[in-house]
């Protein structure tokens, strides 16, 4: 079948510091021009290291009616792809052909003005998103009903709660009807009930036979909505196939796999002039490894440099499941510690330290987990937080497979204390009509 989107060799190059340059003053530009011959001389021979490829030679096709998921870590090029396809920015090289009208939802509530009423913003926002005036008029009642804010439709949106604002914004966006819809992470809005409604609406859109490109970090909703997904890493397309397969590749391959993340240089390691992170690693059975036996203890080790004499340092972790939901958080403070850590909140002389935390065996369920490493001073001031610093995979080793071989529901799978006893030796039927 003929594709509705054909992307060939699409590339986008950004100049590093282009952001800073945006606010450059004439003075800086003039000085820059004066200084640049020198700079060019110094860089002579070397590669042009001032640029970065946000997207590099990406090609794929999407068939009409297909709902394509786009996966990748931050900075992998997903958003750049959507920005190019929605014509917000131009590619540096390559070509894309679109055989249908495109609607893009890179953000909900684009162009909402706080001073204008809900009614006025529906028209303004709808028009910005590419709806015709007549189209907005036709769908106006539907949009208002979907947003559940009938009573406040003539109130300026600056008086809305953030939930109401988001609901109205999504309601307008949800009623776009282009042949191709580009969606970026906009479902993470509102309360749980409204999120469910949004996802339902996305499902409707998919079933209507429209073509959707859907960028999200929420692997669960990707799995539900998209039969096929493509994965990006470092600006390149690295996987393309059934969503389930791509997701498992993302989980196993895309992350920090070695079981250890190491920063060698105390000048550039994550942190500030007080503390810097040196390493985060997973140790299981005495070895550094990202593969962990479900029955064995897992040690999470955090190495850090203290750069300021007598800083009082606290070390903590967040443990996240593969969907990015929090499983637990913990720190080495005494009241949260099974044993005792003498270094907790004690003045640390300058130096390199290691703090370790032990997760018990028979605790986490099978699957992938992430560790965020957190360094604090004075117990509560966060100095460093590195999200998804390491990931590890908990593997079944048969400890709980003797009687039942299937899937145990849940994020944790601890062994709990179970006991049964007989209460009465015989069972007497209740007398009929006893309620009278």
């Amino acid at each position, binding site marked *: 079948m*003929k594709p509705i989107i*054909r992307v060939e060799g699409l590339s986008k190059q*950004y100049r590093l510091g282009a*952001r800073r*340059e*945006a*606010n*450059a*003053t*004439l003075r800086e*530009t003039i000085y820059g021009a004066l200084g640049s011959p020198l700079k060019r001389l110094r860089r002579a021979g070397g590669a042009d290291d001032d640029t970065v490829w946000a997207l590099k030679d990406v090609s794929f096709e999407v*068939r*009409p*009616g297909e709902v394509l998921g786009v996966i990748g870590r931050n900075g992998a090029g997903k958003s750049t792809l959507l920005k190019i396809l*929605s*014509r*917000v*920015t*131009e*590619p*540096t*090289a*390559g*070509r*894309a*052909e*679109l*055989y*249908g*009208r*495109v609607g*893009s939802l*890179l*953000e909900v509530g*684009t*162009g909402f*003005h706080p*001073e*204008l009423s809900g009614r*006025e913003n529906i*028209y*303004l926002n709808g*028009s*910005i*998103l*590419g709806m*015709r*005036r007549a189209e907005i008029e*036709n769908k106006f*009642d*539907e949009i208002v*009903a*979907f947003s559940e804010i009938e009573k406040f439709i003539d109130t300026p949106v600056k008086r809305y709660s953030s939930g109401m604002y988001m609901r109205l914004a999504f309601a307008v966006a949800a009623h776009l009807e282009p042949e191709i819809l580009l969606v970026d992470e906009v479902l993470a809005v509102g309360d749980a009930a409204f999120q469910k409604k949004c996802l*339902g*609406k996305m499902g*409707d*859109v998919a*079933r*209507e*036979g429209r073509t959707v490109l859907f960028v999200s970090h929420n692997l669960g909703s990707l799995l539900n909505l998209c039969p096929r997904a493509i994965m990006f890493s470092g600006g390149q397309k690295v996987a393309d196939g059934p969503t389930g397969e791509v997701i498992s590749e993302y989980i196993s391959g895309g992350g920090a796999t070695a079981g250890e993340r190491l920063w060698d240089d105390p000048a550039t390691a994550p942190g500030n002039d007080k503390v810097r992170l040196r390493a985060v690693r997973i140790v299981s059975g005495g070895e550094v490894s990202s593969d962990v036996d479900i029955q064995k203890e897992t040690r999470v080790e955090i190495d850090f440099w203290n750069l300021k004499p007598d800083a009082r340092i606290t070390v903590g972790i967040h443990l996240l499941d593969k969907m990015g939901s929090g499983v637990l958080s913990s720190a080495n403070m005494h009241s949260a510690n099974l044993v005792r850590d003498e270094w907790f909140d004690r003045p640390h002389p300058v130096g390199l330290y290691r703090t370790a935390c032990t997760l018990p065996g028979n605790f986490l369920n099978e699957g992938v987990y992430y560790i965020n490493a957190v360094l604090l001073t004075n117990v509560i001031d966060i100095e460093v937080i590195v999200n998804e610093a390491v990931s590890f995979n908990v593997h079944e080793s048969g400890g709980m497979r003797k009687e039942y071989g299937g899937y145990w529901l849940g994020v944790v799978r601890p062994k709990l204390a179970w006991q049964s006893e007989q209460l009465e030796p015989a069972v007497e039927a209740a007398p009929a009509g006893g309620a009278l």
Partner: protein
Amino acid sequence: MAMTTGDSAGTLGSTASAATARNAPPPHSLPDEPLFIIQPSKSWAALDVRALWDYRELLYFLMWRDVKVRYKQTALGVVWVVMQPLLTTLVLTAFLGRFVGSASEGIPYPLFVYVGMLPWTFFTGAVTSSSNSLVNNSHLITKVYFPRLLIPVSAVAARLLDFAVSFVVLVAMMAYYGVGVTRAVLMLPVLVLLVTLLALGVGMATSALNVRYRDVGVVMPLLLQLWMFASPVVYPVGALPEGWRRLYSLNPLVGVIEGFRSALVGRSFDWEALGVAAAVTAALLGVAAFSFRRMETYFADIV
């Protein structure tokens, strides 16, 4: 009719979307040629005027937003539109009227100044708001596609309403001074168009430059102030030495402002100055359009 209304109001997602599904073209009816081809643009490409026409509804809504928001936030709203040129006229009359009054060529000085203030207030307001327009709408530029030109154009167009309102005061003033309307007033639409295009030319160029160099936004008020003194707003052209007039009328506002006076308070037109103004405006608009087209490709990346 009543049926359909009831229908669409009663159904949220399912029925409405089923209807869409029915109306949706079958997949095999894709157009042979792509609707859009995305590729790096040629730097010499012409400004896409057709896209502007396609997006005329958005132009209207952006203009409507600018007007509405400006009036909503102020208690006196539209009164301010009239106050600005009116108060300036009063102040100028009080301080300058005595010196320049004799040279205002037979027109009562307050009327002379107000007729000059009309196009000037519009011009300076339009240029100021359009030169800041792209920066102020950066949240739109980085999230949605539409012809970027709509933004400065709508900023200029939104000021046309103010322009129209300040004419009401002019009519009152003309009645007060007993100045009648002549056939020359037929030139007025041409002059309004000319000053609008001039403001657009300047606004387009400065708005694009302002994206990269925020200095432009800072320096514009100063430049506009200087420009006012270089234009016959508070004094007549006749106050200038003969030898300088040719150079002076290269400023397109000279032809425009004098033209307004000719059209409204019945002096003979200086066709040569008007011709120069039109030519300079056309050239400026051409250069602005070209440079805007070149610069708009990176707005979203650096704004």
